[in-house]
């Protein structure tokens, strides 16, 4: 009986560590991150990755929405202090064009420069076919960025 109980406890802890933190399963909903993340696909999020370091440019991140079960999935393109703009679909960081190899269609966004405030990041989706004004994209406080999608 004690051995079985110990085994059960170990499995419970392992499940919590993996599914609750290291590789939390998530179902993708929507097309804002196409073609990188497909609508309906299953991905995993490392919910502890950002506990001891800051988000990095190019990372796909989970951004908290109200309630425990929903997150925005976006990509970080701008870091605190940087001046971010779009010109004819090209990402400009501090006035310089920055390549985005993960895109298949960079679209034609033209967005005025915005300086990313301290403690915030500039996030966008990989699907640039719709105008940026119609998307969930822009500045987000670091405290809402809860994990890295892989």
């Amino acid at each position, binding site marked *: 009986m004690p051995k079985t109980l110990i085994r059960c406890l170990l499995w419970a802890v392992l499940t919590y560590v993996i599914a609750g933190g290291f590789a939390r399963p998530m179902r993708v909903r929507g097309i804002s991150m196409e073609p990188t993340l497909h609508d309906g696909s299953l991905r995993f999020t490392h919910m502890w990755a950002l506990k001891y370091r800051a988000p990095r440019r190019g990372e796909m991140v989970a951004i908290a929405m109200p309630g425990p079960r929903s997150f925005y999935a976006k990509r970080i393109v701008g870091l605190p202090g940087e001046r971010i703009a779009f010109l004819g679909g090209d990402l400009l960081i501090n006035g310089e064009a920055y390549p985005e190899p993960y895109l298949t269609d960079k679209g034609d966004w033209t*967005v005025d420069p915005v300086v990313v405030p301290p403690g915030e990041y500039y996030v966008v989706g990989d699907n640039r076919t719709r105008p940026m004004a119609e998307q969930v994209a822009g500045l987000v406080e670091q405290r809402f960025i809860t994990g890295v999608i892989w």
Partner: protein
Amino acid sequence: MKVKVIALLMLVLVGAGIFWARRPDDTAAIRKQWKALLQFVQKESSPGLLAAAAKAQELQSFFTTGAVVQIGGPYPLSVGRPELPALYHQAWSYLDRMELRSRGEDIFVSGDAARMEVTMDYDLSLRGERQSGLDAYRLHWVREEGTWQIRLVERLDTVRNPAAGRAP
């Protein structure tokens, strides 16, 4: 005998825990009212015009007299309670199907006022074309004469779009 006593004690503790978790309180009352509103606005079939009009009028009962609903960018829309029935009736007439689901709420109560942040999952169908998505809103509730009603609905901009509001 000892095992039976422990098992009975655990049963009592679990029962007490379930009772405590499900006890009626303001948060539960607001959640119940919210679920009733979501259920109310669903459209899966087409009722008669009179029934639809009556439904549109009844929608007001979920909102305070001076309530304002702000749907948010990129085409900001702000409507007061008197305009809600007409707006709802319009949506009801155009759409084949309308489904709204709440994917999680955070509720903060302070006396007779409360703030609820909610993730909404919507699924609309118009002439065979389907549109769905997720959005987050903040609802301000007040308790008037014992009933929780919505005073303000505003979009929750966790991600602030610098290009929003500039759409043609």
